[in-house]
């Protein structure tokens, strides 16, 4: 049964899928925006970083939960 703990931690890290997809979409849209309006690159970069930071949060929560699961094992 001890293996189940590791399995649980691995499932928790699946939150990374959502973060990966969303950061990919954000970066793609940002490069489209810069291609359309190169003069707004600075503002777009700030927005992109902010969006990535928020999207990344889900992955980080997954990591934190995985660490908690492993820590209690």
């Amino acid at each position, binding site marked *: 049964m001890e293996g189940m703990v590791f399995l649980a931690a691995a499932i928790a890290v699946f939150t990374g899928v959502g973060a990966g997809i969303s950061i990919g979409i954000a970066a793609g849209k940002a490069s489209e925006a810069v291609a359309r309006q190169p003069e707004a690159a600075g503002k777009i970069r*700030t927005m992109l970083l902010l969006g990535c*930071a928020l999207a*990344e949060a889900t992955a980080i929560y997954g*990591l934190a939960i995985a*660490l908690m699961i*492993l820590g209690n094992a």
Partner: protein
Amino acid sequence: MDDGIRVMWNIPFLDIPITNVVVMSWIAMAVIIAWAVISTRKMKLVPVGLQNTAEIVVEALTNFAEDIMGHAAKKFVPYLGTIALFLAISNTLGALFMSGLTGGLVAPTTRGLAIPAALAIMTILVVIGAGIQKKGVIGFIKSLFQPIFFLFPFNLLEFFIKPLSLSMRLYGNIFGAYILMEMIIHAVPVVLPSIACLYFDLFDGLLQAFVFVLLTSLYISEEVEDKEE
């Protein structure tokens, strides 16, 4: 599991452990203080030497804060700048000393949850303080009931979620990078670690410092912005 935190020394009688992370934060503080004192010792109207670097940094931070917060920025630049410098230096100190190769003794200060948590709590206190200063105590409490009164629990909850996600983001990124570096070093001990170290320790450290400061300034500007009503 090995979390890369080593106890260097125990304060006798009180039994307070001093970990390598705390020592690294002292080093980061010493670097910043020494730089600040030396570069501003004999200030001239036309800057020479180190005074140039100080002016560049202060100007960049002021511009960054004014972009986001507008006129209210002036008051918060010192706080934002302190956090930015501390995080930027302490996150990248690990890369300078090849943190992966010293057995984890030299670590970014954010590898433990303690320092990110302290910074995040400071940030939320500044946010609440800014809100109270802007709207007054009663106005601030009233703003918790905006836009509809039954959103009050969610508005209140936000003051706990914001610091939690701030600190977990910083800690999780740096800690995740550390674990990945350990794996890379075990799998491919030559060439690859030095390249990966550039990305994980240097780039990711600076990026996370920037993201932390960006989110802090956004939270503050949310509180102090003028609403046209």
